[in-house]
């Protein structure tokens, strides 16, 4: 096999010896040790080129130690010396006779034999010559001995589809070729013949040539560079048989200027056409007595045909005397396609015009005294009172803080005030506030209410205040939708913001929170600029007077909040940061577009074994593009950027997003303690939704007095709840860190026992008796969320649901478990048992004491510990272990229970 594959290769030369990796590299031989040996192994000393090259023989004595002995010496005593002619070979070394010597003695095919045999041009000449020869068929003998050898170039060309007589190069259209042929009207010196088989093609069938047929280019006879071998002078050509024999040579003088083309064409093409006269005529022969045309014997070339000025007149072909092959020197413009050497791809042609070169202007010349440092005008820096250090920093980081003009959005982004400004309408002054529509007594009543709320909010504000800016911002977010009530906190906040923004350089505008609303952003910037100037009424002045009271108050809060949140950092620091390109929309969350249908119907269907339409659901699902590619299927939704189930944005704070069915909420409500209900997240979400509604500007602006009063009542209620809310909010934030109270979980998850899932039914069937005893325990299961709870909230919710309500066994919570590695007490218990065995035992125990299974996490830890432990002592008997485990597990659960109960 290996030898076969080796035989496939053709090996040239002698392979190098394989390098041994461990062998050190050979040292190069020093110069004085390098010797030259002839083929017989004799040393040859080099004398130097001028002293005779290599030494000959022994110390330059050729042959023997005695010296040079002529090999031809024969003693005349024994034998008469023959007359011996010295040949050149006698004086030559044996190396000279070798293959590469000056007189190789081996028989090789010589050039004369090898070359001309298949050359059609030469064949034709030879044929003609043989015809012309005195003895016709003279060279017949020559043709008999034709060595069948071609040069490798010809061989290769033939393999590529070349045929003799064709030119080499890309195939051309007929027209082009024609033109090419006609081109050489006026050629000096080396005009090339129009010859060959193509030449014999008729010209008149030109119009029948189809469009898509291409032809090989005309063969080109290379310029003959062979040296003159004869003793004749330059330009001598012997008796031209065509001229001499065909008899019309005398008619025209041998044209010096176009000699070859004429003679050759006569040779090959036109020879047959002309009538053979069979007379010898020509210059060399003089004019015969019988010949008429003796007028032109002593032809004189007119001097006009010679160049009289050296290099004066340019021939016009742009070649300046360079005699390229004809193909290239005629009609350069039209035959540009040919000047392109490479293969022109299909559908492309060579451009007739050159593309305009790109004008590159040089950069402007810098004045000699230019310094690449930007200096600021002193008036700019002098206006504000900033420290020199800050000024320095500003000067360096100026580029980062260029104030951008608020970008104008499209028509739809404009708000009413902008549109009004565009249309040139007047500001409506009539009822900027809804309060003005109210009757005075109602207004008074509202005002009282408002004052009450103020005090409460102030209280809460004071309570929260010391806890830092983060909580402050949350407070603001909570109080934000309440229009009037927040004047106290907001005023205090205003002071904060005023303090922080005062004296800040006007150009340090780093964050633009209201980019989406340009006018709002403009107002905000105005507000900031006023803040910077230390204006106390900055907010009030910068607000839009055309807005409603509610809108204004909302915006006021927003501005203050934003100004605090995005306090100017020290300018050197702020220059290092840029604003994020995309702001996340915080108020929405992505949920699946297609919700799964109700589970109850399906369960019923499964019970009735009516699989099919009732249990099947079909969703649109978008596979990843790459996944389609890997599976060799076309993309089902080309161009859609969605992957997975299509999502839609929903309100983040709606619990509806996370619940499939909500009808059964009322059923579970009585189970909950009433005070829990107030605190539950459910209420929070309602609140949030209310807020959302409030935030809609249309609803607020077009609100009737009734709704206003409702609103204020709602505000009141909200204010009552506010503290609790705040607490809850904080708690929610801390959920990650600390354990939330049980009530919260209960409230959340008890509200959604709607999908009392399949496992509930099962488990009830399985263990109905343990059902009641566990009710007090199941909140504990909330901590049994898998330790690796990276899963989405949905899945975790659902799994918790199953835990709480279905009271399923532990395996179902984690999916079906794996069977034990060996049977209990079986003979095959010798290999290392793992947790499964225990798990199985635990399952058994669970039947007895279901409580235990609930404390999965602790158990798991125990198990792992146990596992390690076990690996150490594999020989330990199983019974012991299990008993150990039982006791340990038992204790641990009890401890855990205690601990959990101690948690408020």
């Amino acid at each position, binding site marked *: 096999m290996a030898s076969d594959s080796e035989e496939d290769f053709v090996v040239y030369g002698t392979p190098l010896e394989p390098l041994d990796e461990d062998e050190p590299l050979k040292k190069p031989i020093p110069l004085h040790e390098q010797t030259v040996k002839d083929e017989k192994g004799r040393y040859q000393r080099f004398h130097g080129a001028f002293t005779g090259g290599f030494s000959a023989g022994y110390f330059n004595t050729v042959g023997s130690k005695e010296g040079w002995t002529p090999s031809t010496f024969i003693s005349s005593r024994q034998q008469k010396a023959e007359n011996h002619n010295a040949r050149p070979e006698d004086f030559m070394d044996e190396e000279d006779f070798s293959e590469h010597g000056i007189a190789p003695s081996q028989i090789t095919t010589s050039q004369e034999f090898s070359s001309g045999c298949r050359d059609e041009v030469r064949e034709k000449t030879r044929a003609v010559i043989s015809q012309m020869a005195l003895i016709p068929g003279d060279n017949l003998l020559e043709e008999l001995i034709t060595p069948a050898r071609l040069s490798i170039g010809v061989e290769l060309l033939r393999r590529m589809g070349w045929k003799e007589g064709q030119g080499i190069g890309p195939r051309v259209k007929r027209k082009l070729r024609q033109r090419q042929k006609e081109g050489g009207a006026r050629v000096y010196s080396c005009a090339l013949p129009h010859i060959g088989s193509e030449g014999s093609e008729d010209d008149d069938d030109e119009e029948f040539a189809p469009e898509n047929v291409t032809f090989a280019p005309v063969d080109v006879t290379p310029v003959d560079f062979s040296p003159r071998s004869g003793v004749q002078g330059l330009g001598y050509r012997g008796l031209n048989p065509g001229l001499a024999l065909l008899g019309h040579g005398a008619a025209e003088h041998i044209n010096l200027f176009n000699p070859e083309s004429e003679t050759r064409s006569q040779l090959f093409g036109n020879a047959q056409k002309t009538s053979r006269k069979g007379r010898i005529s020509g210059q060399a022969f003089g004019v015969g007595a019988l010949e008429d045309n003796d007028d032109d014997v002593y032809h004189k070339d007119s001097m006009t045909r010679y160049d009289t000025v050296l290099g004066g007149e340019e021939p016009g072909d742009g070649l300046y005397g360079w005699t390229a092959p004809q193909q290239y020197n005629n009609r350069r413009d039209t035959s540009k396609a040919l000047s392109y050497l490479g293969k022109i791809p299909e559908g492309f042609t060579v451009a007739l015009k050159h593309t305009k070169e790109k004008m590159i202007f040089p950069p402007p010349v810098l004045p000699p005294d230019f310094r690449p440092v930007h200096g600021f005008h002193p008036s700019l820096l002098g206006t504000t009172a900033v420290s020199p250090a800050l000024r320095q920093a500003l000067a360096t980081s100026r580029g980062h803080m260029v104030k951008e003009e608020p970008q104008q959005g499209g028509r739809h982004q404009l708000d009413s005030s902008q549109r009004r400004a565009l249309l040139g309408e007047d500001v409506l002054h009539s009822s900027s506030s809804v309060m003005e529509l109210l009757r005075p007594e109602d207004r008074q009543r509202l005002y009282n209410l408002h004052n009450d709320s103020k005090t409460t909010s102030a209280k809460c504000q004071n309570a929260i205040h010391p806890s830092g800016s983060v909580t402050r911002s949350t407070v603001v977010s909570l109080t934000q939708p309440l229009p009037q009530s927040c004047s106290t906190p907001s005023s205090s906040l205003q002071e904060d913001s005023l303090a922080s923004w005062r004296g800040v350089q006007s150009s340090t505008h780093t964050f633009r929170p209201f980019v989406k609303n340009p006018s709002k952003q403009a107002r905000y910037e105005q507000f900031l600029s006023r803040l910077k100037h230390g204006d106390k009424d900055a907010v009030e002045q910068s607000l839009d007077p055309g807005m409603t009271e509610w809108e204004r108050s909302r915006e006021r809060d927003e501005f203050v909040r934003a100004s605090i949140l995005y306090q100017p950092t020290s300018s050197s620091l702020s220059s290092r940061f840029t604003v994020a390109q995309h702001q996340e929309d915080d108020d929405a969350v992505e949920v699946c577009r297609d919700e799964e249908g109700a*589970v109850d119907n*399906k*369960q019923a269907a*499964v019970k009735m*074994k009516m*699989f*099919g*339409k009732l*249990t*099947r*659901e*079909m*969703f*649109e*699902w*978008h*596979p*990843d593009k*790459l*996944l389609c590619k*890997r*599976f*060799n*299927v*076309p993309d*089902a939704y080309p161009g859609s950027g969605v*992957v*997975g*189930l299509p999502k839609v944005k929903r309100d983040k704070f709606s619990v509806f997003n996370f619940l499939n069915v909500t009808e059964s909420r009322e059923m579970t409500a009585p189970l909950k303690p009433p005070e829990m209900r107030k605190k539950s997240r459910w209420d929070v979400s309602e609140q949030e939704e209310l807020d959302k509604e409030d935030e809609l500007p249309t609803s607020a602006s077009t609100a009737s007095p009734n709704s206003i009063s409702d609103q204020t009542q709602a505000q009141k209620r909200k204010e009552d709840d506010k503290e609790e809310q705040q607490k809850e909010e904080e708690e929610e934030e801390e959920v990650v860190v600390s354990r939330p109270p049980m009530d919260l979980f209960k409230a959340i998850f008890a509200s959604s026992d709607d999908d009392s*899932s*399949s*496992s509930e039914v*099962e488990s009830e069937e399985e263990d109905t008796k343990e059902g009641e005893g566990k009710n007090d325990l199941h909140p504990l299961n909330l901590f049994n969320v*898998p330790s*690796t709870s990276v*899963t*989405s909230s*949905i*899945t975790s919710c*659902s*799994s918790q649901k*199953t835990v709480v309500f279905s009271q399923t066994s532990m395996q*179902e919570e*984690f*999916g*079906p*478990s*794996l*069977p*034990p*590695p*060996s*049977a209990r007490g*079986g003979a*095959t218990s010798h*290999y290392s*048992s*793992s947790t*499964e065995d225990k798990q199985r035992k635990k*399952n058994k125990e669970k039947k007895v004491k279901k409580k235990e299974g609930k404390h999965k996490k602790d158990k798991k830890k125990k198990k792992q510990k146990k596992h390690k432990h076990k690996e150490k002592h594999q020989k330990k008997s199983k019974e012991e272990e299990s008993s150990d485990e039982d006791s340990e597990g038992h204790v641990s659960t009890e401890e855990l229970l205690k601990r959990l109960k101690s948690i408020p």
Partner: protein
Amino acid sequence: MAFPQPKPQAPQLPQHLLRTINCQQGAVRAVRFNADGNYLLSCGSDKSLKLWGVSRGTLLKTYSGHGYEVLDADGSYDNSQLCSCSSDKSVILWDVASGQVIRKLRGHAGKVNCVQFNEEATVILSGSIDGTVRCWDTRSRRFEPIQVLDEAKDGISSVKVVQHELLTGSVDGRVRRYDLRMGQLHVDFINSPITCVCFSQDGQCTLSSSLDSVVRLLDKSTGEMLGEYTGHKMKSYKLDCCLSSKDTHVLSCSEDGHVYCWDLVEGSLSLKLPVGKAVVQSLSFHPTETCLLTSMEGCVQVWAAEPEETQDEVTMAT
């Protein structure tokens, strides 16, 4: 002149125990045939994956690199690669010949229950207890999955791939079929945690076993139930089920130490194969012949229709 077709033989069942291989790798969590059925893979609870020759029961290679017990494995169509998944949350792509880890794919949040190559072994699909199926690209060096299928609301217990369709069984009691060509997701509600799902060989049906001790044969296109196979016991463990190579029978593991074999059409129990006393954990049917692999505890059993001549000498592995 065509001869009449010979009367079709009654489908044979693998009822003769050819050999028992003691794998010496703890409990055998899964046993799988390779693509042509000449080799078998056993996933051990001692973190090792072993490759055996089926005909002689010789151990060919041990693949070690998992950090916890190996739960499932699959071989590529050209037998050049293996993939395996483990409780250590990782999926490993192995080179068969060298036994080296080509790629270790991490990303699952929990133990990985099942793993499967697609037909051209360009994608590895792994289903985990974290409720996701992750599609890993074996062609690129990306360490993130191509796509995460997180539609399941509970752990994935089984994944199968045939051509352009993925079938997943989840503990939330649903069988999901992702049709890549159509871009659709079909969800069949079974109402009991699914332990194993299979495509039939003709690709028209899906088989799913669930913890209510029922194996159901559903029509793939409509979701209608074509058959229901009961009698075995599958209450708490994740056990396998499968179809025979010619779709004539449905086989399922059972917790009572038997492999149950039902006639697909009639639904009647045609064979109750006693494997041992413990739980039959995994089984795998030969892709073409009547040959069955079962695993119980630490041993793998090879069953065939005809008893071997040298049946008496039960080859024990070293």
